């Protein structure tokens, strides 16, 4: 899969177009959210838990803040954590997967059992423990999510590299005296990259959901608004029992639509690599 093919896929399928549109809009809001927000998202007022009106398009929170502004400003937290954590996870997962699959032997045994442990240990409780022990901030969350979600990528990369290692062009390079570093750089990595890419896109979804869950449980960065922390505040202040749908629905819907967009793009690339997973007829 070349870069051009990868791009074509995004433009030619409805899932690609949907994903691209949502991602584009989200990134735009993540960058300019503070500027477009009609109100200061933390400015409280006496209009407490008001339903949507002309002044407040999505109503107000339990302390009279503007829900729409919080939603716009909170986008950045979700996007930054989602992308940065997925990047860490991809780097770590590919490094471990390539080392383990390429070198085999004891390297593989040690790294593989390490991977197994991380696959088995339930991720959210591990994230909770880490986030509770370290004081939560944006970058602590990025590190915690990135460091706990790489094992799946490692496993998939390892399997791919193990088959690559036996292929004729790699053996030829080795026979000609190419160094391990050279073989990994010119033969192994380019052939593993599409797989890593598809997997990383899916990890973004996992990271966004993890950030939201941690923030919802009160382990988010207290100085930042995020969709998860909005849900935490809404739930904690009893907005559901007050019937404040305008406060409860938007943050969750934003998470859902963004995760859906990322997941659909991820599936799209996974299908190219593994046609058995095809989701619908057009692709």
């Amino acid at each position: 899969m070349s870069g051009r093919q990868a791009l074509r896929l995004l433009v030619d399928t409805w899932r690609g177009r949907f994903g691209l549109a949502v991602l584009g809009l989200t990134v735009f809001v993540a960058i300019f959210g503070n500027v477009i927000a009609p109100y200061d998202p933390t400015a409280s007022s006496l209009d407490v838990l008001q339903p949507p009106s002309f002044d407040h398009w999505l109503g107000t929170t339990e302390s009279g803040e503007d829900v729409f502004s919080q939603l716009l400003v909170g986008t950045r937290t979700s996007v930054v954590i989602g992308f940065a954590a997925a990047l860490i996870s991809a780097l770590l997962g590919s490094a471990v997967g390539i080392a383990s699959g390429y070198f085999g032997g004891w390297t593989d045994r040690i790294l593989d059992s390490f991977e197994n442990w991380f696959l088995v240990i339930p991720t959210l409780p591990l994230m909770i423990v880490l986030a509770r022990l370290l004081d939560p901030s944006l970058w602590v969350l990025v590190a915690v999510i990135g460091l706990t979600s790489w094992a799946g990528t490692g496993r998939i990369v390892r399997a791919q590299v193990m088959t690559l290692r036996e292929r004729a062009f790699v053996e030829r390079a080795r026979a000609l005296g190419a160094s391990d570093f050279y073989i990994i750089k010119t033969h192994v990595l380019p052939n593993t990259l599409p797989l890593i890419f598809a997997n990383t896109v899916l990890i973004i979804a996992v990271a966004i959901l993890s950030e939201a869950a941690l923030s919802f449980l009160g382990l988010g960065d207290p100085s930042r608004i995020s969709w998860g922390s909005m849900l935490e505040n809404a739930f904690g202040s009893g907005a559901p029992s007050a019937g404040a749908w305008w406060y409860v629905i938007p943050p969750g819907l934003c998470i859902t639509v963004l995760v859906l967009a990322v997941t659909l793009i991820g599936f799209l690339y996974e299908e190219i690599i593994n046609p058995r997973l095809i989701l619908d007829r057009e692709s």
Partner: protein
Amino acid sequence: MNARWLSGKVAAAVFTLLFVIVFNFFLFRVMGDPTEQLARLPRATPEEIDKLRGQYGLDRPLMGQFADYMGDTARLDLGTSQRSRRDVVDEIWDALPWTLLLVGTGTLIATLLGTWMGVKAATRRGKKTDDALLGFNLFTYASPEYWIGILLILVFAVWLPILPSGLQVTPGAQFNSAFAEILDVAKHLILPATAMTLMLLGQYFLIMRSSMVDILTEDFITVKRATGMRWDRVVNRHAVPNALLPLVTLSAIQFGSVVAGAITIETIFSWPGLGELTFQAINDKDFPVLQGTFLIFSFGVILANLLADCLYFYLDPRVQSK
């Protein structure tokens, strides 16, 4: 069953559990400074803190503490909750049945419903039924389960107040029969179990659907059709049993997210299980409880993986012959 294969799997599971126990110690003792937790005690003077440190063995060298910890864990002594002053093991023991009830109900319904939907979608691939099922399941797959829970509360407990919004029984209620009590618990179970089901449903559906689509294109299905066998019989007797295999592996992998769902969904519905216990421990910085629930969650996932491996072995003759 192949005894050697089984003992290998059991040994691997025990080894993983040992790793988790050791990891648990270093995670809490090395990363989190226990004296900081003690200092949170109201009005504790430095002398009192020193005394407490002695009492908990925190002034001893790390390896000595580690030996104590391993001994305690082996005797199932997981320490005392800082909030309730009760043994952590007792707290976990009280909460476990509630979590098992919620998780069991949710998983069971999600498996049945997901399988059924997956079969329906795969046999009507590309038609309206398929599109609708796919859309619905992708949506629930992408949405946070606690948000779905909040929406369920909003609709069924606030707008149409027909179901309770939380807890496991009506507070203060007197029941004149065991049946009435079970009925009350069941009523409280509906919403959290629905949230749990919707969280797991998408995964099961997607795997079952692609597995079925795959099987339906295989030669033996065409042969069965050619013999004149009725189509629904071909599907139910020959395609579905074969398509079920990936689902077994999936249910093990899913167990991690089941645990995550238990934490957030129980929090939403004040369901008194392990998840709610974890949530309270997060808020109170109650590290012994947090450590205990982390251990029991890991244990649960390891056990589920082992069981799924055994089930897979039992179901798939190809694995047995190797």
